[in-house]
C-alpha cells in the first residue's frame, strides 16, 4: 500500500454526501418506524428526535425501546446501546489509519456520524486508494439528516407508516454489503478471512441476539487475516 497523503476537503465531504444518497430512502423509512414506536411508547416528538440525534443507530434505538417503560431503570437501556453498537468499535478501528493524522475535531466529528452504510462505502473508497477523509463525514451526514427527518415524520404520522420490508428496504444494507464485499475481494488471500467470518456469523447469529454476529465476523476475519499474513 502506498502512503498517499490524507486530506480533508469540502470536495470530499460533497462527494461522500452525494454518493450516500442512495441509502437515504431506506434510512428515512427506518427512522419513521422508530418514530412510530417511540410515540407508541409515550415519547414526545422532541424526545424521539433527541434520542435519534444522540444515539443515531436504528438497531440500538429499537432495542432500547424494548426496555423503555414508565418505570425503566436507566442503566439497562445504556447497556443495550453498548451491546448493539459494539460493531462500531471495529469500524472505527479499521478507519484509524485513514483518520489518525487529522486534527481531533475532524476525526472525532466524522466518527460521530459513522453508520453501517457509510462505513462500508468509505472502506471501499479507502481500498481503492481514495484518501480525502471528508468523504467519511459527508457520507455520514447524508445518513444522519434523513435519520432525524424520518424520526420526526414517523412520530407525527404515527400509525400510517408503510412497512420497509414491502419495498425491500430492510434488504438494502445486506445488498449493499454483498456488493461492496465483491468490490473488496482481492483474490485468494481473502478466502481464509471470509470463511472464518462466514462461519462465525452463522454460529453467532443462531446463538446470540443483536448484532454480535457482525462483531464476531469482523474479529474472526481480522484474526485470520493476521494469522495468514506472510503465509
Amino acid at each position, binding site marked *: 500500500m502506498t502512503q498517499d497523503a490524507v486530506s480533508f476537503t469540502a470536495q470530499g465531504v460533497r462527494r461522500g454526501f452525494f454518493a450516500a444518497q442512495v441509502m437515504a430512502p431506506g434510512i428515512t423509512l427506518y427512522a419513521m418506524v422508530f418514530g412510530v414506536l417511540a410515540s407508541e411508547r409515550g415519547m414526545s416528538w422532541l424526545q424521539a428526535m433527541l434520542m435519534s440525534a444522540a444515539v443515531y443507530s436504528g438497531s440500538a434505538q429499537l432495542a432500547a425501546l424494548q426496555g423503555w417503560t414508565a418505570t425503566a431503570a436507566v442503566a439497562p437501556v*445504556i447497556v443495550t446501546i453498548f451491546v448493539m453498537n459494539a460493531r462500531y468499535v471495529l469500524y472505527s478501528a479499521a478507519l484509524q489509519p485513514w483518520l489518525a493524522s487529522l486534527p481531533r475535531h475532524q476525526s472525532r466529528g466524522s466518527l460521530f456520524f459513522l453508520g453501517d452504510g457509510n462505513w462500508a462505502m468509505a472502506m471501499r473508497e479507502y481500498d481503492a486508494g481514495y484518501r480525502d477523509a471528508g468523504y467519511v463525514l459527508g457520507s455520514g451526514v447524508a445518513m444522519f439528516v434523513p435519520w432525524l427527518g424520518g424520526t420526526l415524520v414517523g412520530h407525527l404520522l404515527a400509525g400510517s407508516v408503510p412497512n420497509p420490508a414491502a419495498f425491500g428496504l430492510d434488504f438494502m444494507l445486506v*445488498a449493499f454489503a454483498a456488493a461492496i464485499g465483491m468490490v473488496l475481494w482481492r483474490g485468494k488471500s481473502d478466502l481464509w478471512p471470509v470463511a472464518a467470518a462466514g462461519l462465525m456469523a452463522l454460529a453467532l447469529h443462531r446463538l446470540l441476539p443483536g448484532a454480535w454476529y457482525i462483531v464476531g465476523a469482523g474479529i474472526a476475519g481480522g484474526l485470520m487475516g493476521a494469522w495468514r499474513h506472510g503465509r
Partner: protein
Amino acid sequence: MAVESTFLLALLGMGLASFACRIGGFLLMGYVTITPRVEAALKAIPISVMVGIVTPAATSGKLPELLGLLAVGGAMKLLRNDLAAAVAGAATVAVARWVLV
C-alpha cells in the same frame, strides 16, 4: 420515563455510549503499533464484516433473499457499480416478496 430529568439522564448515557463505541476503536488503535500483521488484520476486517452482514440472509433459506443476493451478484458483474447492484437487490426482494407471498 415520564420524568424529564430521568429522560435527560438516559439520553446523556445513551449518547455517550453510542459515541464511545464510535470513537473507541479509533482511540484504541492509537496505542497499537501498526505492524504489517496488524495492518493485515485491519485490512481483513471490512470484507469480513460484509460477509457477516450478508450471512444470515444468505443462509436463511428464504427465496426472496436468495434471489436478491443473486441479483446483486449479477448486477455487479454486468454494471460494476455497487450502488446500482444494491438497488437491484432490494428491488428484486420487494418484487419477489410481492409475487411469492
